[in-house]
């Protein structure tokens, strides 16, 4: 308190309480520590340090089933230099790309319909959308196993319609995995898209058309640019979640559909080669972080363009 002419004897308890209203004081810092301390401690101890541990182990050597603290780059050489692992990595990225595009194409019109529906119907459709969102991923993946099995619903319907004579083998194929992934992650695309589309004033579309833009140009020049923030969020979420999938390739795919998460898990739990698994995980982590950083930068560009 920098009051020069402060009357003596007016401090004490009252002054202590008064200081609570001044954020720059020590009491404000104590309060902040109480508020953010537990969360920060939890995240540092159980998240940041453990992840650093993976990074450290990825430089350890591994022989005769034993990990030793002799530092080496062999794990990274093997991870990036071996055909099998490169294939798995690229396949994960490729699945990520395909599923993202599929979710975008499938989901955008739905988000638009949702955003333009009347209040009551919109609420109902929205509810219907978050039900699969919050249904256990194990159950949903299992559901596709029922759908795509030899005696599954899809084969039954196709046979009933006379389109096929013998059951088609859908399960344990790349297509099954991609369909399953699209199903699991579609809501992650639709929800952020819906959030931005809902905020776009419908009269903007009318204004564009009034000014002579046809429907396509109205979409390309008005709706699409305005929905970019939601679109980029949706794409990033779906891409990152897809490349990290474990369960869907495990249940719906065959051995050649294994993705990076499955391979990392096997290194840790089957061959117990933590250094090599750690190297794979570190590469995966770096790819993920790079994606997020790129997204952040792109998104800030968006904001600048708005100004």
């Amino acid at each position, binding site marked *: 308190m920098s009051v020069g002419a402060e*009357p003596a004897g*007016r401090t004490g308890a009252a002054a202590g309480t*008064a200081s609570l209203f001044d954020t720059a004081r020590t009491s404000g810092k104590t309060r902040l520590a109480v508020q953010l301390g537990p969360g920060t401690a939890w995240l540092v101890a159980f998240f940041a340090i453990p992840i650093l541990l993976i990074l450290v182990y990825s430089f350890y050597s591994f022989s005769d089933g034993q990990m030793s603290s002799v530092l080496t780059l062999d794990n990274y050489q093997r991870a990036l230099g071996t055909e099998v692992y490169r294939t798995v990595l690229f396949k994960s990225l490729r699945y990520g790309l395909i599923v993202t595009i599929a979710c975008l194409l499938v989901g955008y019109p739905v988000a638009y319909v949702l955003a333009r529906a009347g209040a009551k119907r919109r609420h109902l459709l929205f509810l219907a959308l978050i039900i699969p969102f919050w249904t256990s991923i194990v159950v949903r993946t299992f559901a596709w196993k029922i759908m795509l099995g030899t005696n599954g619903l899809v084969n039954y319907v196709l046979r009933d319609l006379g389109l096929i004579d013998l059951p088609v083998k859908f399960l344990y194929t790349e297509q099954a995995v991609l369909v399953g992934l699209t199903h699991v992650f579609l809501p992650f695309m639709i929800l952020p898209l819906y959030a931005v589309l809902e905020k776009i004033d419908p009269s903007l579309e009318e204004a564009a058309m009034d000014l002579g833009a046809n429907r396509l140009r109205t979409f390309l020049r008005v709706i699409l640019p305005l929905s970019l923030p939601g679109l980029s969020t949706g794409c990033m979420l779906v891409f990152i979640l897809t490349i990290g999938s474990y369960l869907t390739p495990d249940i719906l795919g065959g051995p050649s559909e294994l993705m990076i998460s499955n391979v990392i898990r096997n290194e840790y739990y089957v061959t117990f080669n933590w250094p090599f698994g750690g190297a794979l995980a570190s590469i995966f982590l770096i790819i993920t972080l790079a994606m997020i950083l790129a997204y952040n930068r792109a998104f800030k560009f968006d904001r600048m363009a708005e100004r």
Partner: protein
Amino acid sequence: MGDIDVELRGVTKRFGSVTAVDNVSFHIKKGEFFSLLGPSGCGKTTILRMVSGFETPTEGVIEIGGEDMSRRVPFKRPTNLVFQHLALFPHLTVYKNIAFGLEMKGFSKSEIRKRVDEMFDLIQLQGYAERKISQLSGGQKQRIAIARALVNHPTVLLLDEPLGALDLKLREQMQLELKRIQREVGTTFVYVTHDQKEAITMSNSIAVMNNGIVEQIGDAGEIYENPRTVFVANFIGETNLFDGTVSSNGNGAATVDCAGLAVKVAANGPVMDGQRASVSVRPEKIRIGAGSDTLTNSYEGVVEDVVYQGSTTSYRVRLGNGRDVNVAVQNTERSDGFSPGAAIKVGWEPERGVLIPEHAP
């Protein structure tokens, strides 16, 4: 000191490098309706928040009822605040909202009931006790907010532009209502507003603020008729300002040379020849046409613009030196007045104008 409720002495408030309130001193008498008037960002709300205890003055002393409040937390001050957006508790009923302050002070249930009921009578909203806040209209919310503060019998009731969100009609109605309530309870009201009409209608005393300082304090008539700064003259009502230098003075009169126009004006305070000064003349104090050529200040001009405003007609007249003056004429008789392009004379007596000497920089 017994009849003074609030006193500020040399109060300054800085937020970082910004000085929101700059060495302000004034006092408010018991039972007064006192308005702090000024444009947004002039520091009026900061003063209110310092009086209520949500900000601490960087320098200076605030006394309420003769007691120093500098180190007193808001919940121990004898003031209550009606918030700009009212801040009624949405999860409590109307009754619980009004009773909140009394409950905090630990009054008995029956005493609370009695005093809240008195409030319902005062604001004329009997039967609304169990309503939810969201079920009230704008005007009703306003009254509840006032009741919630007044029920605590504060020494001073502080009001932070509480009528700002209302539409014009309701606003005028609430102004009268507030005035009535103040008369009935006799509590000192400190009212913050940027609306000069509102301040003039309601207050016994007005402090006009600008850039963190108090430009002038006085009753409505004094502030309108005798503005002491150019800012006050401009901010309260409309005026014509003639800027120039004093060319002669003496015997309570002065002449200001304003770009070739000699303007005579009554001078109450000391002025010196060569000093820069402005003369403020309200549009309704200027005569136009017949009879204006015999006045002390009399000038030739051409009507540029005529705006019929119902009870008055407003003329914009270009004088010989290229300067425009605005003249408002009361439409006492149905007449055609003047048309644009008409060559006429305008004039006023020296005592109709106000001399505002420029402050030494």
